[in-house]
């Protein structure tokens, strides 16, 4: 399945991309994806502490991903 991954804030600076597409096997959860990203971007050591949104909603990291999900990596927010 194809997962779109969006990067914001300091995550975007580390990865140096706004978004990427990754091909994953079925039945993988958010934790699996986060670990994959940590391997892919070794500088990205803080990613485990970041929040994650799937399809514009915050999720727990044991949620199972589906084909065409949009996953956003959300560093600590600082609006206002």
């Amino acid at each position, binding site marked *: 399945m194809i997962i779109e991954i969006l990067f914001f*804030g300091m995550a975007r600076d580390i990865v140096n991309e706004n978004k990427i597409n990754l091909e994953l096997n079925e039945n993988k959860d958010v934790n699996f994806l986060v670990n994959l990203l940590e391997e892919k971007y070794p500088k990205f050591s*803080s990613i485990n502490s970041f929040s994650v949104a799937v399809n514009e909603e915050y999720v727990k990291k044991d949620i199972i991903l589906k084909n065409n999900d949009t996953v956003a990596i*959300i560093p600590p927010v600082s609006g206002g």
Partner: protein
Amino acid sequence: MKEKISIQITSDKLNLQTCYDFVQDDSCGGIASFVGTVRNTTKNKTVNKLVFSAYEPMAIKEMKRIAEKALLKFEINKIAIHHAVGNLLIGDVPVIITVSSAHRGAAFDACQYAIDTLKVTVPIWKKEHFDDGEVWVNSHP
């Protein structure tokens, strides 16, 4: 309850009067508001500018959620939450929240609830620019 809520993310200048006019109506006795402004220093360092970026569709959803919860939790009439993105200089306004209610306590409480929650849940980020570099605010969770 859509007509009770005004949510906006914009690269234009925010306007306090616009937010005030949205929430004002004949049954309200008071309007509490909060206007965030860009300070000239952080931890004694001079700030040149802030750059705000947002995950816009999700930020809009989260701001709506805050407004809807405020309408449920507090006896208020209307609420506006507007946030700016892009480059902001000292004195510029990243956020405006206005709340109207029959009695003032509820408006104050809802306004504080909204800004406190916005700073925790809404996916917007600011980068501080100094003479000698730049740093993401809250970048060390």
